[in-house]
């Protein structure tokens, strides 16, 4: 907690500065609502926002789950068959060079305004960091540890289970953290381009009404949700990597 103080202070200072800029009339009120107004808008709209959040979160979680699953499958298969790695990796890379805003309308045309195109877009943005993280983790494994297990007569499945998978966990979680941040953003972007509900749809509506205060409220809500998801990933990481605690304790001592 002590380490977070400077960040908290910086954010507080920014908010105060922002409020002052609005109060003194430096920026016209219709262009930039003050933090207090944003909070008021958020409170007034809380039920509507909740309703839209549920839709967005559903898409995000479904997309993230499928994306992470696919990411793991890709990584494991590519690690197992070197030829496939050389064949698939460039293709995966290509999928990441196409901006999401460019594919989203296409997906809407193909799959309609329901959930499917949104989930597909999220899958496209989330599987990649997981795959890359895992692949890196797999290849960073100590060859001597693999040799040790082989000398004990371990087969490939056992080497995977005891060495490769646990060894790649830190990189997997780095990838997952990025994917968790992407999934909400991905959901919002795809909702912008067509849909019946969700925070993205809400955003386009308030934009058309020039309701800046609501706009800011929803922006903050989206980043809060992303932060929450990342915190959830960190929590999962601590649970599945209890030994890291001691790592950190050691670092502090040194």
């Amino acid at each position, binding site marked *: 907690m002590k380490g977070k103080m400077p960040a908290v202070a910086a954010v507080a200072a920014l908010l105060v500065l922002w409020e002052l800029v609005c109060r003194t009339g430096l920026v016209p009120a219709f262009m930039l609502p003050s933090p207090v107004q944003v909070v008021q808008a958020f409170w007034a709209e809380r039920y509507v926002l909740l309703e839209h959040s549920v839709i967005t979160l559903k898409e995000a979680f479904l997309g993230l789950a499928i994306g992470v699953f696919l990411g793991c499958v890709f990584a494991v298969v590519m690690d197992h068959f070197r030829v496939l790695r050389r064949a698939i990796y460039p293709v995966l890379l290509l999928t990441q060079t196409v901006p999401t805003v460019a594919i989203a309308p296409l997906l809407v045309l193909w799959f309609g305004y329901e959930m499917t195109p949104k989930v597909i877009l999220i899958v496209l943005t989330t599987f990649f960091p997981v795959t890359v993280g895992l692949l890196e983790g797999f290849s960073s494994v100590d060859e001597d540890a693999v*040799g*040790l297990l082989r*000398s*004990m*007569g371990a087969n490939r499945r056992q080497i995977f289970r005891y*060495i490769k998978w646990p060894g790649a966990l830190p990189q997997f979680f780095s990838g997952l953290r990025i994917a968790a941040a992407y999934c909400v953003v991905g959901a919002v972007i795809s909702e912008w381009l067509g849909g019946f509900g969700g925070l993205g749809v809400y955003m386009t509506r308030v934009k058309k009404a020039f309701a800046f205060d609501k706009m800011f409220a929803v922006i903050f809500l989206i980043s809060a949700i992303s932060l929450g998801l990342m915190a959830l990933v960190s929590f999962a990481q601590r649970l599945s990597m209890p*030994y890291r605690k001691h790592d950190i304790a050691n670092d502090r001592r040194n």
Partner: protein
Amino acid sequence: MKVLEVCSVSKRFDGRGVLDHVSLDLQEGELVSLLGVSGVGKTTLFNIISGLLLPDEGKVLLGGQDVTGRPGQVSYMLQKDLLLPYRTIEDTVSLPLLLRGVDKKQARAQANALFADFGLEGTQKQYPMQLSGGMRQRAALLRTYLFSGQAALLDEPFSALDSLTKRAMHRWYLDVMERIKLPTLFITHDIDEAILLSDRICLLTGQPGTVSHVLTIDEPKPRGEDFALSARFLEYKKYILSCLGQR
């Protein structure tokens, strides 16, 4: 009786000879050390004996059976302790049992029964990070032992330790060996260590490496500090130095 026999093994890497017709054997209950400068192919020889690497020529016999290129037969402790950072000591140590299909509970119980013998009481639930260098080495040795091959290969097990810890480990190791009597091949580049621990010493010299001398240390075990400071000890050392100098 010969437990392990290495018959005229040669190995080349990219046309460069590393091992040239190396032959040696290991008897029941014996500790033989391989002594030689770094880069003489000791670790390569161990990789071949353990089955991780195929020799270009020659073969490895274990209990009279050809095990060349067949891993999973001898207990092998690599140079690094390779305790897995994400597993508790008891789970790292019982790994060879788990790999053989023993269930987790039983593997733990079997490992735990030996923690006291290896001076590791109370470390079962700890992670490798929390252990000192000497403790880590003991844990790695316990894991090697739990594999329970017919013979053990130890690649410089004590080289990473400071000299005081190393001495304590030698005393402890000799004591354990008295009890478990596991035939062991031992790589070292520490002459004192070789003389103190071994029944026989094979000197590996040359480029590519070959066994140039075999020397028997005819001294009762356990050997204490007084042996390490005796004139006989120095004579062995002098002889070994002269052999290594002859190249």
